């Protein structure tokens, strides 16, 4: 099957000599919902920038639905919609004009462009604003405008670089369901995000990138299974002075006097409660310490920083 995106040996050295990508291999299957995760400066935007012709690559190969950007750039571009990290529309132009003009750049005649613009502006809740200059939109509306603009030519692959940055919770949820709907209808989606619960909620496959290298490229399910240890935070009725002895478990007190217990996979929580009960400690509430993916992510990036050698997955 053709991959929606296929990247081989991609490197990028910027004009100032900085090597932002050190040989990236990445493939995203058609129909996938894919997350590219990594800390600030990891090389996410550089990678997506090369795919979308905003950045010149130094070396390597990029194919969009089999179309090589070196030899079949126009076809590759036709199949691709891009929502960049930073606002990049003319602030003085009207919302509707921005979207129809973009369609025109893809060769779509005005009547069809207008229909398509109407469809996506309505779906993204911007139809009322169609005659406003872009600068009068709120931050969240500007993001949605960029999504409408990226979709106006109905690309098969949609790339979003931090689409939900600065978007409130309610709107984020509605953007999620919009993207899920697009994905269900067949659009392949790649996004970057710093909200790991977003990746956990939406994506099927995940790659983690750091310092210009892919540390991990696997399914979300496998990634989460690697997480063998989970930390639970228990609030006790009476604050504890020192962590209790719970044989088989590692525990400590957090800064606010709540009890943190590390639980291995398959160990179960019953023993924790039985032992606490015996000690007369009453638990009033419980939560997991952090988003599971976040924990894994932080651990990986830290390992990568502490080991001089590239981590597994690089040599694939």
């Amino acid at each position: 099957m053709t991959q929606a995106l296929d990247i081989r040996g991609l490197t990028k050295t910027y004009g100032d000599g900085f090597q932002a990508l050190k040989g990236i291999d990445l493939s995203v299957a058609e129909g996938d919902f894919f997350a590219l995760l990594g800390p600030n400066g990891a090389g996410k935007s550089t990678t997506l920038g090369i795919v979308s012709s905003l950045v010149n690559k130094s070396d390597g190969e990029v194919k969009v639905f089999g179309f090589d950007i070196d030899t079949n750039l126009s076809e590759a571009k036709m199949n691709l919609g891009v929502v960049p990290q930073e606002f990049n529309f003319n602030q003085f132009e009207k919302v509707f004009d921005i979207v129809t003009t973009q369609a025109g750049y893809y060769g779509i005649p005005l009547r069809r462009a207008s229909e398509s613009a109407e469809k996506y502006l309505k779906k993204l809740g911007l139809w009322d604003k169609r005659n406003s200059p872009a600068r009068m939109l709120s931050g969240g509306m500007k993001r949605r405008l960029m999504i409408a603009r990226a979709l106006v030519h109905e690309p098969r692959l949609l790339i979003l670089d931090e689409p939900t940055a600065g978007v409130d919770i309610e709107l984020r949820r509605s953007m999620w369901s919009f993207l899920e709907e697009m994905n269900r209808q067949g659009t392949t989606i790649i996004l970057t995000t710093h909200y790991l619960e977003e990746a956990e909620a939406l994506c099927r496959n995940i790659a983690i990138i750091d310092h210009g290298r892919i540390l991990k490229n696997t399914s979300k399910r496998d990634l989460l299974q690697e997480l063998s240890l989970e930390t639970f935070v228990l609030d006790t009725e009476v604050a504890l002075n020192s962590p209790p002895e719970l044989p088989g478990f590692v525990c400590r007190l957090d800064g606010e006097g709540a009890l943190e217990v590390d639980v291995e996979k398959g160990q179960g929580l019953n023993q924790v409660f039985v032992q606490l009960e015996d000690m007369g400690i009453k638990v009033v509430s419980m939560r997991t310490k952090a988003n599971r993916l976040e924990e894994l992510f932080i651990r990986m990036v830290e390992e990568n920083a502490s080991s001089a050698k590239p981590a597994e997955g690089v040599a694939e």
Partner: protein
Amino acid sequence: MTSRAILTAYYTIVIREIRRFTRIWAQTLLPPVVTMTLYFIIFGNLIGSRIGEMGGFDYMAFIVPGLIMMAVITNSYANVVSSFFSMKFQRSIEELLVSPVPNWVILAGYVSGGMARGLSIGLLVTLLSLAFTNLSIHSLPMMIVTVVLTSALFSLGGFINAMLATKFDDISIVPTFVLTPLTYLGGVFYSIDLLPNFWQGVSLLNPILYMVNGFRFGILGVSDVNPYVSLGMILVFIAGLVFVALTMLARGKGIRH
């Protein structure tokens, strides 16, 4: 892209450009009309009546072709340099970079946009001049070909300037320090016959002199230089600048890291 799609993309760019300069008409269309009216009144009427003849015509009739060309040159250049640079500045150039529009269509679109403004203003100034003098046209084809090619040439110049510019200052350097002096010294206000030999020779190095005289030939039938040499020169410059602009676009100079 199919040729029909390319045509749509080209129209899209041109229409966007026209929409831009008409939206900000108070900055783009009004000022040249005001300035040119002042030129007509002061140089043509008040001072011109004391100067008498120039090149065999009354002074007003002599300067009208030069002033039209001056307006066309300045506005063609200004339109493209400010529009394209502000696209770069606001990053909306990325809308074009991600799309499949070929580079030569981008260039053609912007140059056409600059020509649309330059030539509309040329037409406005021509109509305005009719309130001050009678224009009897010597050769309409010569007049039109010269003004259209000149407008294309300076639109190209504005495009290259915008590609090279990294800050707002950079887009006013060329108009202020190169275009304005060359236009004033390019025979808009006088025939180079008035100059001593040495300065006549220097003036002949000024390309704008050829364009102004070619256009004046179209209207009045008089010129300081051979009008066909003028046309040939404009064409050579256009070819050179098209090559430079397309090379820069292909490399992504200043627009792609």
